[in-house]
């Protein structure tokens, strides 16, 4: 019984790292976030299924009047987002080891990559809107809904980045470590969804 920690009391890198080494089960918040992510993944699944369901009902895809999507830029951007997962993973490892400052800089780097990604994607989306609107037909509706859902998740991720950076700047506690780990889970999820979304988006051209 003496070995059981009061984990929430850990403050500062050393104490937090010690709690991490000792725990056998992941923190409640981490599991909760994983479940929320599972639910969101199911939502994306439904939207991707909708896209292909509508595709099966259609003769030509995309329907006449809409160009097939260009392949290069979306793939490049997605690779960029995936690359952004590397500093995220490193940040989580650093935070678990109690290295708050290193974690902070790695997260800041990741946030910069992610923000650039979002900016570039929104730019591309606005270009798309110039050539066809979501109100044209079901293909367009599915196309923009899928992209819009994904970009919304990225935007929320960026807001989450900012909050974690602000919290982490005040030092490391067990609570904030869980936040960093959850942030990591979130970005792995968004990146995985980015791959699925881009493959779906580019499917007519592949």
């Amino acid at each position, binding site marked *: 019984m003496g070995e059981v920690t009061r984990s929430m009391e850990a403050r500062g890198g050393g104490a937090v790292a010690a709690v991490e080494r000792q725990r056998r089960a992941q923190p409640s918040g981490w599991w909760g976030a994983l479940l929320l992510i599972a639910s969101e993944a199911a939502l994306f699944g439904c939207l991707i299924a909708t896209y*292909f*369901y509508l595709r*099966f*009902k*259609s*003769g030509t895809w995309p329907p006449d009047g809409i160009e097939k999507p260009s392949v290069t830029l979306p793939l490049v951007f997605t690779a960029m987002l995936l690359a952004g997962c590397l500093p995220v993973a490193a940040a989580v490892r650093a935070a678990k080891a109690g290295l708050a400052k290193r974690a902070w800089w790695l997260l800041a780097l990741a946030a910069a990559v992610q923000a650039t990604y979002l900016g570039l994607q929104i730019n591309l989306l606005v270009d798309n809107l110039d050539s066809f609107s979501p109100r044209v037909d079901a293909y367009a509706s599915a196309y923009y809904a899928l992209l819009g859902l994904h970009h919304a998740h990225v935007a929320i991720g960026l807001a989450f980045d900012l909050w974690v950076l602000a919290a982490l700047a005040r030092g490391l506690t067990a609570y904030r470590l869980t936040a960093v780990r959850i942030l990591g889970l979130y970005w792995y999820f968004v990146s995985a969804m980015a791959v699925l979304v881009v493959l779906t988006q580019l499917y007519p051209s592949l």
Partner: protein
Amino acid sequence: MRSPLSLSPESPVSPLLWYGVLGSAVAWALQFSSGYWITEAQCSPTGGQWKIDVSAWTIAIGAVALAVAIGSAATAVTLFLRTSGVDSKGAPPAGRIRFLAIVGMTVAPLFIAMIVMTTVGVLVLQPCSQS
């Protein structure tokens, strides 16, 4: 970290144990979802364009799913026999393994039945006739 295959059923995260419990369910879920999509694709208004051989795919997927599910059942039975004499409400790990083995042995026949019924059903019925 030890390799997953070396984790004995005593470990709460033993892949062997969870295969025995969930293997048949996963096999069914994958057979079901892929079967649904294949029939939807082939039987949709423009489905003929891909010339999907529904029967061939159904048999292939059904066979694989059946094999996985039977394997899962066998694993559960093995674990059940290995824990003979243990109370399923007893202390972990033995009690927990027995409990999960009972679960696995009971669910596997149901999922096997579903896999077989739906595979046979698809083969027997005329493809893409409206129900």
